[in-house]
């Protein structure tokens, strides 16, 4: 029964794979960004579950408490959360600009429009 101690890692792996599937299989840009957010949050859960110590409390020094949870992953994840929202904001800004430039945020439509413009450009150059 040694696997019973590892269930938190398996939950994290399942969440990560859900996020990865959303990024790969969906064409809508907003859904891809949501999938990335799910992936990021699952990585945070991974780190914080590693930091937990049985019988420990929050790492704030108090009288009468001897066992604390590990504060180092908390610091790393604090940084990671704020960086995550910065990249999400940039991704959303890019999606808005793409919509204005191409008229749609589906990956297939954008690729079709790009190929169409490339074909037109090469035809113009041959014509000159």
């Amino acid at each position, binding site marked *: 029964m040694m*696997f019973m*101690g*590892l*269930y938190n*890692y398996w939950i994290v*792996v399942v969440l990560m*794979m859900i996020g*990865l*599937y959303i990024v*790969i*299989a*969906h*064409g809508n*840009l*907003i859904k891809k960004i*949501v999938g990335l*957010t*799910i992936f990021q*949050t699952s990585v*945070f*859960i991974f780190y*914080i*579950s590693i*930091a*937990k*110590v*049985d019988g*420990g*409390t*929050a*790492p*704030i*020094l*108090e009288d009468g408490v001897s*066992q604390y949870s*590990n*504060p*180092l*992953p*908390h*610091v790393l994840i*604090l*940084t990671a959360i*704020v*960086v995550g*929202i*910065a*990249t*999400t904001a*940039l991704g*959303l*800004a*890019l*999606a*808005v*600009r793409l919509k204005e430039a191409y008229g749609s*945020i*589906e*990956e*297939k439509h954008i690729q079709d429009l790009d190929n169409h413009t490339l074909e037109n450009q090469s035809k113009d150059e041959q014509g000159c």
Partner: protein
Amino acid sequence: MKDLVAVVMLAGIYSLLSASFFVVMDAADVAFTEASVGAGISTLLMLVAITMTGRSEHLVRHKPMLALVVVTIIGGLLIYGTLDMPHFGAVDSPIHGYVAPRYINDSMQEVGVINIVTSVLASYRAFDTFGEVVVIFTAGIGVLVLLSVERRPEDDAEIDSLNKAMHEQQLILRIATKMLIPFILLFALYVQFHGDFGPGGGFQAGVIFASAIILYAMLFGLSTARRVINQSFIQLVAAIGVLLFGSTGLVSLLNGGNFLDYNVLFVDPIAGQHLGIFLIEWGVGCTVASVIVLIFFNFAGRRENYKRKKHRETK
């Protein structure tokens, strides 16, 4: 599901659930940040982006079976990799053995702050925090480059008259917001200064401060909010935050210590640590608050431009 608003709401609920999970895992600071950032600002920004890019998804899913196979293979490999890892909550796992006891035992003598996460974030690993503040600042600049719209005075007058007409409709919300915003700002200041003694610190305070200003901008109109807080002033505050952080490090260098070594900032090392942590938390709070407000103002300004173009096209 095709409705993107439902997708964004579910993502917000997911963030809130993970924040409550962090509380159970004894990570108070992280739960605070995740709840305010993930469930608050992230959901808001996604909703504003959706109003511009369209509310539903056109179902053009390409090759779901291939994606499923790839994901299953990677998931299987990862689970195989976790079989060697220490059990959940084990006291003797390797990460609890080397660096963490030094931080837990020596934090009081070396830094003098009872919140160990703040002492690690602001003193032992201050360089990482500096990099993170610069990353947030860069994201703010990126959004400015992508989304800023030039404002003309005749558009402002048009929006102003629209806002005044809406005042009757939104009376309850406006009065309630006017009563609430001072308390939200006060709470942000409390969290900023209380980071030494409990969960809190620069990031959470910056996000709460920004959310107060965003609440005002959402209810009273973007042009009114821009008149209350000028956009160039916010950009200045963002830059000042990063400069404050960097110059604390430079002053430490000039005083003979390492970069961001607070012991040399003052005669007494512990007082120097307190002063250093105070200054850089101010820098972090300023930059985070102003960048989030900047991002929201630019998104909302773009949206007003978009709606005005559509309005003119349909006329």
